[in-house]
């Protein structure tokens, strides 16, 4: 077992990363190993703490819609846009925020944006990495939302 592989498994065992993250790291390691075989060198492939590599992995929010008649819509949104949008909510004037919250609750979404703190936003973005929404319609339409 290579040094990198055992380090990833150790991090998984220690609970520093979850199974998904470990799998992604192992995949990345595997692809790098094959690249390395093509251009041989020596030494460890992952140097230092791989946490920044893990944090840097998802960059885009994908929304894919497959219609019942073969139509397809694929939207790739940078996660930075989601982050900026959420940060913007903390600066909306209170009067406007009250109206937004009221309209949102009327539509069945009781989210109070005025309670959003910067650390909550970071946590929310982090949680998005694990998110995957799959909706299959009765007529064969599909909606998929995930981060990559």
């Amino acid at each position, binding site marked *: 077992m290579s040094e990198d592989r055992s380090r990833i498994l150790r991090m998984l065992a220690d609970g520093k990363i979850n199974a998904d993250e470990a799998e992604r790291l192992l995949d990345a390691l595997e692809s790098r190993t094959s690249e390395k075989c093509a251009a041989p060198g020596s030494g460890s492939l992952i140097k230092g703490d791989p946490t920044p590599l893990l944090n840097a992995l998802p960059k885009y929010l994908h929304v894919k819609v497959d219609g019942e008649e073969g139509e397809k819509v694929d939207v790739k*949104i940078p996660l930075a846009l989601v982050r900026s949008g959420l940060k913007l909510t903390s600066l909306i004037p209170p009067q406007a925020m009250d109206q937004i919250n009221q309209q949102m609750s009327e539509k069945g979404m009781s989210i109070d944006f005025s309670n959003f703190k910067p650390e909550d936003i970071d946590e929310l973005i982090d949680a998005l990495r694990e998110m995957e929404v799959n909706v299959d319609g009765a007529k064969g339409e599909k909606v998929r939302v995930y981060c990559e």
Partner: protein
Amino acid sequence: MFPPMLLYVRVTAPDRNRSGVWLPLFLVWLILLPIVVLILLLTTLVDLVLFLAGQRYHHYTLLLLRCFGVLGATRGTVIHIHSNENDVDIDLV
């Protein structure tokens, strides 16, 4: 973070005829720059007045800057629409 500099719109017809257009958004930003600077000065003044008047909310300048942040974060957005009639690709570069 800079706002998107180019908008690429490509339309592919069923007969594989492709037509694409690069829209130079940076020209729009250049034109808007003096207006934005003027608005920023105005909001700074408004914020100062609100602060001196003891209002709790005096963050209009910051709000405007965050709006530019959102605009900048749209860079990298890709939209692909496929239908029976044609394909449309929109890229913000």
